[in-house]
């Protein structure tokens, strides 16, 4: 190229330099879109990961769901364990410039249970609060009927909105953007259902101005299309990289992969209650008394599962074998529980001892569109159980059919996953393990109807214990008994993978959220 042309090119480049500000924009592809922009309408990860960028909570959750000061600078129970006091951050403004005060907190707590037609309300986190007392503009007290140790965890799920939006702010008003006034690092500027959500940096954010000027979040449900969009440079970050593509993407210099363990345990729930279970029969089909009620049988089933093989072969190495309800590091996890060893001979011996040396026939039910490789996992477990003499079959179905039938107790052994939204062990214990008791709101997802008085008592006591260390010990102890009694058979913890452009990094999160605030350029 002649020198003159070089000079012209250089000038052109200099002229277009301001356009380089474009590099400050970020496009993220997520697997599923938010169902609405109302932060209190639908309690689901797809919505919450959007809301977490527009709104703050009194207590925010860090990458490992640790509790971090958000709109509250400090908090804790008062001398009366039924009253919690929160000191609010001063000088915080909403996106419309109005100041954040205690009135906004009271307004939010009042709005949460009253969102019309909410398919999954956040009221479960505020139901125990009997009164919100505004002490002054920056001090709030929450009253409860009985001691409520989960106050901090519960409030770390509630997005604070501005009280200026009025008494009957509707979900539509949030979708239009009119009511979507938060204090978070980004403000909502566009919501086109099915296509995109556009956020803009809030330069006045109390935690410091965010690094991305504009963030576009696009739902791309097909995993292959999501990967292609990243490879083509259409998007900068993608969530949920499929396990089948990981090996190939690792060799690609244009792409970085970021992996982190999730709070989601994949497990088998076992009918340990009914005298006759619908999908357990003698070999050949005769009705038998339910062998799954015998703890030795359940133990044998757990020992017969080669968790390493599931992780290596089915999950392509992208998972971690599990022996309890949450991965290590979470609140209330026991340090004394090992991942059960794969021991088919021991399992056969246990079956023999329990009087089932000749085996029996059992069907594993599972979803085929809910968890990573869910149907293949069920198949693998069935093969492993066949090796200890059980005639095992597998039936998988779409989640739209599966979960309803599972809740109606139509199955005997079912593959399910549990993500602990609160990031601590009481969540799975209270829902999956304690005795089913609808009146007290306990054991709602205990689809095997496991019941153990000792576990119930320990969890009950933990739920009355405000002291963190004592509560963690009680939860760990309850977990130890539940795992010893094989209330459920955990198989593995999911590991999530994010993909980014080569010059970006993502901080993986246990709650599986994909946040623009977690994306930073590599220096």
């Amino acid at each position, binding site marked *: 190229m002649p020198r003159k042309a070089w000079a012209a090119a250089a000038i052109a480049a200099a002229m277009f330099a301001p356009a380089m500000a474009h590099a400050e924009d970020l496009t993220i*592809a997520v697997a599923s*879109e938010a*169902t*609405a922009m109302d932060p209190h*309408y*639908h*309690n*689901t990860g797809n919505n919450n990961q959007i809301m977490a960028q527009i709104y703050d909570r009194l207590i925010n959750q860090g990458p490992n769901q640790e509790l971090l000061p958000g709109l509250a600078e400090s908090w804790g129970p008062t001398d009366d364990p039924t009253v919690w006091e929160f000191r609010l951050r001063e000088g915080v403004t909403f996106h419309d410039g109005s100041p954040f005060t205690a009135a906004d907190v009271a307004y939010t707590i009042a709005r949460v249970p009253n969102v*019309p*037609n*909410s*398919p*999954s*309300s956040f*009221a*479960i986190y505020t*139901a125990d609060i009997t009164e919100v007392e505004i002490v002054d503009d920056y001090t709030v007290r929450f009253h409860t009927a009985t001691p409520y140790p989960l106050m901090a965890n519960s409030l770390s799920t509630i997005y604070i909105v501005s009280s200026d939006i009025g008494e009957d702010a509707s*979900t*539509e008003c949030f*979708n239009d953007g009119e009511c979507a006034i938060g204090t978070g690092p980004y403000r909502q500027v566009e919501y*086109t*259902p*099915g*296509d*995109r959500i556009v956020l803009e940096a809030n330069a006045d954010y109390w935690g410091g101005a965010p690094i991305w000027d504009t963030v576009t979040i*696009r*739902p*791309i*449900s*097909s995993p*292959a*299309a999501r990967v*292609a*969009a990243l*490879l*083509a*440079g*259409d998007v900068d970050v993608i969530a949920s990289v499929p396990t089948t593509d990981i090996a190939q993407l690792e060799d690609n210099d244009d792409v970085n992969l970021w992996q982190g363990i999730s709070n989601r345990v994949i497990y088998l729930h076992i009918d340990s209650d009914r005298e006759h279970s619908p999908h357990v029969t003698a070999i050949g089909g005769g009705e038998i008394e339910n062998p799954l009620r015998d703890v030795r049988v359940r133990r044998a089933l757990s020992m017969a599962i080669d968790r390493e093989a599931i992780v290596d072969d089915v999950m392509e190495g992208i998972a971690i074998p599990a022996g309890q309800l949450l991965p290590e590091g979470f609140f209330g996890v026991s340090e004394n529980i090992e991942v059960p060893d794969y021991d088919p001979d021991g399992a056969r011996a246990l079956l023999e001892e329990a009087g089932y040396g000749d085996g029996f026939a059992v069907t594993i039910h599972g979803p085929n*569109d809910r968890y990573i490789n869910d149907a293949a996992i069920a198949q693998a477990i069935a093969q492993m159980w066949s090796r200890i003499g059980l005639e095992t079959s597998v039936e998988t179905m*779409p*989640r*739209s*059919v599966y*979960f*309803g*039938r599972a*809740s109606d107790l139509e199955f005997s052994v079912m593959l399910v996953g*549990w993500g602990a*939204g609160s990031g601590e062990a009481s*969540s799975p214990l*209270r*829902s999956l393990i304690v005795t089913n008791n*609808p*009146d007290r*709101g306990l054991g*709602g*997802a205990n689809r095997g109807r496991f019941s153990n008085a000792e576990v119930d008592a320990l969890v009950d006591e933990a739920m009355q214990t405000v002291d963190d260390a004592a509560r963690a010990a009680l939860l760990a102890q309850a977990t130890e008994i539940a795992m010893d009694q094989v209330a459920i058979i955990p198989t593995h913890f999911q590991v999530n993978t994010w993909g980014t452009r080569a010059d970006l990094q993502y901080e993986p999160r246990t709650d599986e959220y994909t946040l623009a605030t977690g994306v930073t350029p590599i220096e």
Partner: protein
Amino acid sequence: MTVFVIRRLLQSLLVMAVMSTLVFAGVFAIGNPIDILISPDATQAEYERAVRSLGLDLPLWEQYWRFLQNLADGELGISFVHHEPAIELILQRMPATLELAAVALLLSITFGIPLGLWAGLKPDGIAGRSIMVGSIFGFSLPNFWQGLMLIMIFAVMLDLMPAGGRGETAVFLGIESSIWTLDGLWHLALPAVNLALFKTSLVIRLTRASVREVIGLDYVKFARAKGLSERRVVFVHVLKNIMIPVTTVIGLELGVMIAFAVVTETVFAWPGMGKLIIDSIFVLDRPVIVAYLTVIVVMFIIINLVVDILYSIFDPRVRLSDVGS
């Protein structure tokens, strides 16, 4: 003709009634959407509240009765998932699907008919044979795979086109669409081609077969014997007569493209109705499913009506009153 149109519309009401009953009962039989929508740690009380608030605690006949009452007010129901009128959700996404289908249809006609004519007139030439072989590929490649290949080649390897999504939109003639902007057309190209490939092959094969059939008939021979130019023979006598089967198929295929562009919309993350319906089916969002299928039934009825009217234009022997009965 008026009688014909009125009778058609009455028939369509019956079809819609049967369809909505079937869908209603079908979705009810699959399961309860609350099981999928609600957070797993919800308490029983919370679960029951959600079920009640969506009216799912009522017996099926009562839910259906409410649906009919709303219908009388011109409402097709509120989405369980998005809490917006189902019809609005559908109309929001309809332009994206319509523009995709329209462009794909245009592509398949502009390429399909001339290529089919050529292959029909010169079936033994190299070009004619190549066209037919090519159309076999267009037919047999799976849509999903073909879409991914288009993305891999044009977006990832050559880095020419965007890998998906809808481009900028603009308003022109009162219609907001992405076909009015360059960026929009750029985004539209790959999905439209993906959707059009199969249809083009269909049109090619259909045109060719019709041409082969017509070309040997007496009136064509007679036209040639009269000394008419080949151009006039082909474009007036042959083309006009093959248009009837081609129009029928294109019309129906347009309906299919609009209603079931699901695969293309999924692969290209195109924010159209197809993606909406598939998402709604996954979460059993019954109001949206029912509303969508109602819209689709209406659309098919209109398309069929237009096709029938076009018949009478192409072939004066066809009387509309005959077709209806």
